């Protein structure tokens, strides 16, 4: 069984920029342990002779050429890029002050 402690939950929440209450920490800790424990069943499989899959693709897929030529394809432009932003200003995305 995976060892998931409350401090792990607090750290994950912080890295994800989520604010959670103490009650939620108590609630999520066993839930997270269950999830990790469930996935850990995979460790029972013998994978010594299996190549790690990266890119989430099949070996056939990995052989596909997937590069593009260095040719400008056009962009959205300033107005369209900022259209859906909550607080655009002076051609920029505007956010609370960062250091």
């Amino acid at each position, binding site marked *: 069984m995976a060892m998931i402690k409350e401090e792990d939950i607090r*750290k994950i929440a*912080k*890295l994800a*920029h989520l604010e959670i209450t103490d009650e939620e920490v108590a609630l999520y800790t066993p839930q997270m342990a269950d999830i990790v424990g469930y996935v850990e069943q995979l460790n029972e499989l013998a994978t010594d002779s299996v190549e790690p899959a*990266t*890119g*989430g*693709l099949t070996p056939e*897929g*990995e052989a*596909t050429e*997937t*590069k*593009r*030529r*260095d*040719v*400008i*394809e*056009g*962009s*959205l*432009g*300033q107005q369209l*890029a*900022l259209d859906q932003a909550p607080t655009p*200003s*002076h*051609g*920029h*995305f*505007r*956010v*609370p*002050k*960062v*250091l």
Partner: protein
Amino acid sequence: MKEGWEAVIGMEIHAQLKTETKIFCGCAANFGDEPNANTCPVCLGLPGALPVLNEKVVELGAKAALSLGLNINETSIFSRKNYFYPDLPKGYQISQFDKPFSSNGTLEVLTAERDESGHAKDWKPIKIHIERMHLEEDAGKNVHEGLPDVDKYSYIDLNRAGTPLGEIVTGPDFRTSWQAYDYVNHVRRVLQWVGASDADMEKGNLRCEANVSVRKVGEEKFRNKVELKNLNSVRFMQKAIEYEIERQIEAHESGEGVNQETRLWDEKNNKTKVMRSKEDAHDYRYFPEPDLQPLKVSTEFIEKIKSEIPELPDAMLARFQRDYDLTFADASQLVGDISLAAFYEATAAASKNARASANWILSELQREWNAAGNSAADSPVSAENLAELIRFLDEEKINGKQAKEVLIEMFASGKSAADVVKEQGLEQISDSGAIEKIVEDVMAANEGQVAAYRGGNEKLLGFFVGQVMKASKGQANPKMVNEVLLEKLK
């Protein structure tokens, strides 16, 4: 550095690779344009958008890696580096982690300590281990100045987000700030030479960070290191490292100790200051980027790239000394910049006088460039025009003093040497008939002195030369004047 201590320095260089488009999308890689104009769903990190690798990034990355002595890995993997920052719209940067594009290189770098006035003392090669050069995307830009309420808000321009970078990481192999300085210059020039990057620190397409610690001589373990940032020129970088070495030695000796932290160079006060530190140590939770396939490069591709690498700066330096008979000091100045080296070679070829070409470029022309804020890249006097001037001098059409004046006029007007010489009526009189005529006139006007000379007062020769030069308005060829006078005064 204080006796008994040594510095341990490792360098990280980010070089923007010189492509037309970004690394994973077809937006123009121009970040001087209108803010956020060069953006699309991929580089804005909009849901569902998928990255596709730019093949030019692989080509330029390979050129850079091979010319820095690195080995290119047959397979490399892109990974997500996760962190939150407003200039990083996806919440992760696509970079490379445990399987980088290239690794394990050895680079020989010429380096020298400098005396107090900045003159290099004794150039010698050192071997540097380059751990890796990986490929990644740049973040956007936070704008903190020139817009309303910057005390409350940050403004984000994502034109730079997704431009391709090569990150070059060395081992902790430097022992002095000048070694690090010479290394960065070496890398800068190599990247320019192979066309992988403009590598201009002032324009931000080459950025470097230095990891600095100190230890007692003989100590094996490393002490706490400080990461130096905000190094906007190679000179600032050298000063920042130098400052940091002294600061750390003092901190160790006083018992205060050195914190593992990031410090910024404050160029106004000439010191480093601690950057507001993040509470947690970095935890980037790298994992393989599922939207990109492993990058594979073939042996044929590597061989093709190798064959395209031009003569590198150190080889050019040796050739300039050997073929053009230049001193190390002159040759190394000329290979300091790719445009300057090309300008020199073009001048030397057209003038057929390699030494004079070096002298003229490094003294007279360099002075004009400095004064006008130009360089070889945008010189008002072309290499061909400078070569013509040098030929006029070699053919004794003009004298050295006149040549300097002609150059200044060429620089100001952009005219050719021939045009300036003609306009100013400077062309030296080398026609023997014309000179004989002037000599005869001068002798006729100074019969007394002619008699005295013939009577044995040979010092008067100088007087005659002066009179002839005056009569020719300084244009007579002085060597011919002498010869003609000696003949006629016999």
